[in-house]
């Protein structure tokens, strides 16, 4: 049996947050949403047929994830249709982790009960901050009270595996304020916490304010230009997150992800995300969703009307098909694997690729270890705290040289 993870993208929101560059749309009419779900249903069945011969039979789905956008803004009936379609066309393990992303303010107790009944067994709640002024500035559609209500209702509905998302490095945020947010969240005792740094992405209102380098036009969306925390403060927030959550009984298993560590078996670690980081096979359904099957990556087209029109035809939907050669597989293994706290085991590496880690990366590893950015822990290569802070740099060293790079074609050649 080979494990398979399934992802469904729900590109609808109540409103767009000011920092968000995910593929999602506000104000889509209910009938258009239904048409979208219809198209995803077709894709789910078509994709099963398109799997390499016989492999569907060998796959067992270990995780299903409804992400967005805001999946919880959908009628539960639509989520149920999608879930049942997947259960019909794929062998879904009875133990599978089935996660739904939820935004506070979009769910009521009855709605959550329906999710629970249909088989959703994990919720990921986008709290982001426990300060109303942060939520306003971010353009979130909920308040702190909405979060508490959603969280309480989720427990009441029966959910025993809840993750909350929190963001650090928000405009005007101090380390103390952030720690209050984190403390309040931890006091709810969610099984899992994802703590991300705010990143300012192109094409968002935040980019207009913070990303362009020029003096922001006054009053973009009426937002005050609170300064972003200094790098030092932002990193202090991250370091404090790790220390605090560990003291609260969480275990950092990936740069930004923390799981309750009740019995040390990692049962609350996100199985779905681990599939990404460990290069497991996964299929993404819906607008812009990414997939990797048998070392081939592809992602769906990103235009909503085109997606619906394609009626699930995988040939039309799938773009940017890339067969990963050994070089790319190795690079991914490294830059994804190092995100995980358990790191890279040389033995596992050699078993996977039939080449020793040392032969390929010995020099890079030694140099980065000498800089205090990598370390060996329990026979595995891991990022140090400082290495995490500058992980972008560190990971980029694991990209291998292209052979053709070295022989650049001369363009102004001898004419005579």
């Amino acid at each position, binding site marked *: 049996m080979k494990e398979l993870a399934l*992802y469904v*993208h729900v590109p609808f929101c109540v409103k767009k947050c000011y920092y968000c560059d995910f593929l999602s749309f506000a104000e889509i009419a209910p009938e258009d949403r239904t048409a979208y779900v219809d198209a995803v249903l077709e894709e789910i069945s078509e994709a099963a047929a398109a799997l390499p011969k016989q492999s569907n039979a060998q796959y067992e789905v270990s995780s299903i994830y409804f*992400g967005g956008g805001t999946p919880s803004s959908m009628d539960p009936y639509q989520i149920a249709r999608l879930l049942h379609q997947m259960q019909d066309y794929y062998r879904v393990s009875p133990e599978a982790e089935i996660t739904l992303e939820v935004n506070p303010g979009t769910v009521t107790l009855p709605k959550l009960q329906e999710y629970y009944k249909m088989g959703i067994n994990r919720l990921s709640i986008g709290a982001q901050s426990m300060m109303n002024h942060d939520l306003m500035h971010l353009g979130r559609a909920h308040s702190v009270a909405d979060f508490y209500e959603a969280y309480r209702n989720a427990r009441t509905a029966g959910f025993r595996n809840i993750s909350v998302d929190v963001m650090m490095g928000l405009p005007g945020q101090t380390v103390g304020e952030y720690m209050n947010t984190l403390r309040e969240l931890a006091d709810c005792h969610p099984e899992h916490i994802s703590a*991300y*740094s705010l*990143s300012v*992405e192109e094409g968002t209102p935040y980019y207009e304010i913070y990303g362009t380098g020029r003096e922001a036009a006054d009053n973009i969306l009426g937002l005050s230009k609170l300064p972003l925390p200094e*790098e*030092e403060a*932002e*990193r202090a927030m991250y370091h404090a997150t790790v220390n605090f959550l560990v003291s609260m009984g969480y275990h950092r298993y990936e*740069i*930004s992800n923390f799981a309750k560590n009740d019995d040390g078996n990692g049962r609350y670690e996100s199985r779905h*995300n681990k599939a*990404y980081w460990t290069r497991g096979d*996964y299929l*993404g359904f819906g607008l812009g*969703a*990414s*997939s*990797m099957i048998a070392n081939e*990556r592809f*992602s769906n087209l990103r235009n909503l009307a085109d997606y619906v029109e394609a009626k699930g035809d995988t040939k039309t939907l799938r773009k*940017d098909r*890339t067969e990963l050669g050994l070089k*790319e597989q190795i*690079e*991914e293994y490294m*830059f*994804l694997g190092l*995100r995980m706290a358990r790191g890279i085991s040389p033995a596992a590496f050699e078993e996977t690729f039939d080449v020793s880690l040392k032969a390929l990366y010995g020099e890079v590893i030694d140099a980065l270890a000498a*800089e205090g*950015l990598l370390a060996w822990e329990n026979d595995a290569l891991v990022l140090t705290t400082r290495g*995490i*802070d*500058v*992980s*972008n*740099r560190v*990971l*980029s060293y694991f*990209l291998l040289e292209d052979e053709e790079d070295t022989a*650049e074609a*001369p*363009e*102004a*050649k*001898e*004419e*005579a």
Partner: protein
Amino acid sequence: MSTLKEQQKNIRNFCIVAHIDHGKSTLADRLIEHTGVLTDREMQDQVLDNMDIERERGITIKSQCVRMVYRAQDGEEYILNMIDTPGHVDFGYEVSRSLAACDGAILVVDATQGVEAQTLANVYMALDHGLDVFPVINKIDLPSAEPEKVKDEIEDVIGIEAQDAPLISAKTGTGIEEVLEAVVTRIPAPTGDAGAPLKALIFDSTYDSYRGVIVFVRLTDGVIRNGMRVRFMQSGAEEEVVETGTFGPGRFIPCEELSAGMVGYFTASIKNIRNARVGDTVTESARPCAEALPGYKKVLPMVYCGFYPADNARYPELRDALEKLQLNDASLLYEPETSQALGFGFRCGFLGLLHLEVIEERLSREYNMDLVTTAPSVIYKVHKTDGSEFELTNPSNLPDPSEIEYMEEPMVKGEIMVTPEYVGPIMQLCQERRGVYVSTDYIEQSRAVLKYDLPLNEVIYDFFDALKSRSRGYASFDYELKGYVRSDLVKLDILINKEQVDALSFIVHADGAYERGRKMCEKLKEEIPRHLFEIPIQAAIGGKVIARETVKALRKDVLAKCYGGDITRKRKLLEKQKEGKKRMRQIGSVEIPQNAFLNVLKLGDED
């Protein structure tokens, strides 16, 4: 093409000289248009400026040749060979080459600006070459034109007759016929004996991948024809002429022969460009002339800097490119050198900073070279304690201070023309640049000529920009080498992360060393990206640190979100990071963006 019997008396070889921006190229366009060499469709603004850089900057760098046929009012047809010349002070050598091929010159003066420093320089050069010069006054269509005043100015300042100068507007086409008539009547026909042995001056050349070197010549005596065996008197090379011809705008027009007084080109399957140097004399192998033409005054480079290929593997390509550029830019000198920081490259000599920039741009555009450029330097004379003396073109080669008795630096005679309200700021600038005041003369009330002796070293650092900014663009500047003076000079070294970067060392006057060092450090701090460790940047003189800045260590560079399963996006982020590194120069453990070298050297004059 032309079957016209080209009698010497119906030939006029001339050029146009002017201060930059006074409308020389526009006038050239109008003359071409008026004589109908081009159809409208072929006519493009400023046809003669056919190098990209020239068009963009609106300046002429390379000389160009055009042959026009004009039926004058006396009813006869004349062959007018127009040789376009550069206007910028850096390109005096090019001007000189062009002048050697001419018998007369049109002086273009802007009716709103009057005589400027380069106007003078170019006119004197033309007069030195024995050319007959007549003025035309351009831009009379502008409301601020003062043609009468400008006429007086030309007579007072230059001392040539100007009362009957054609008043023209090259832009609107007014007065063009008058200019053509003046060319016929006021510029002498060439002299020379078509029956004498061939004697022709190479005044320019270009390279064509099919035909080899195309040699531009002005025939003094004799005839050159296809199939003739010719000798290059200086290089001693001999070749058989394959094709002769004259110049159409933007193209070559083959003909059977060229005779005394004519301007044209020939090809001879010349592969080795060294064999057909500009300035050399061409004669017939079978019947050589007695002695070569004097050629022209060899102009020596005043500014040196190092060019290094960003990718060291492209060193041979850079060498080829420089060789080709040198073919028609004899003032460009280069010789190989090696830098610890930059690898293999060339130390190149230029007439000035603009010349340097132009060559750099041509290498980049025409030869696709990605270059790292070191600090421009002048030539210093170093007198050593053992009594020997040598010329220093590369600051890295300066011996230990204990071996130096004293040093000398080149001074220039600078002439700045400016309107009176800016005399104060300009004088202040010259003082700051260690200028020695010589005199102030007023040409009328509206124009002052400031004379200063300035160290060339100070002139090559953004002096032009500073001049322009302090005079709101009204000052014009010209200079010539005056000689060497003893000076208190020191070598300033830059250390990045404790390692000396030879490419950034430069010579500076002791009084300005601290200031310059401080600015260099500040600028480098902006240019060097943050690394995973702290990087000290120091300026030092002989091991003594005089200024320091620090590039703080990078605290945060985290791959932000997870983007679901979009690993490709993550990869792209990392690849971008890695690509960035490739455009860096590794100095010890520090990566420095290549353009940092040039940016650091272009220290602005903001303050």
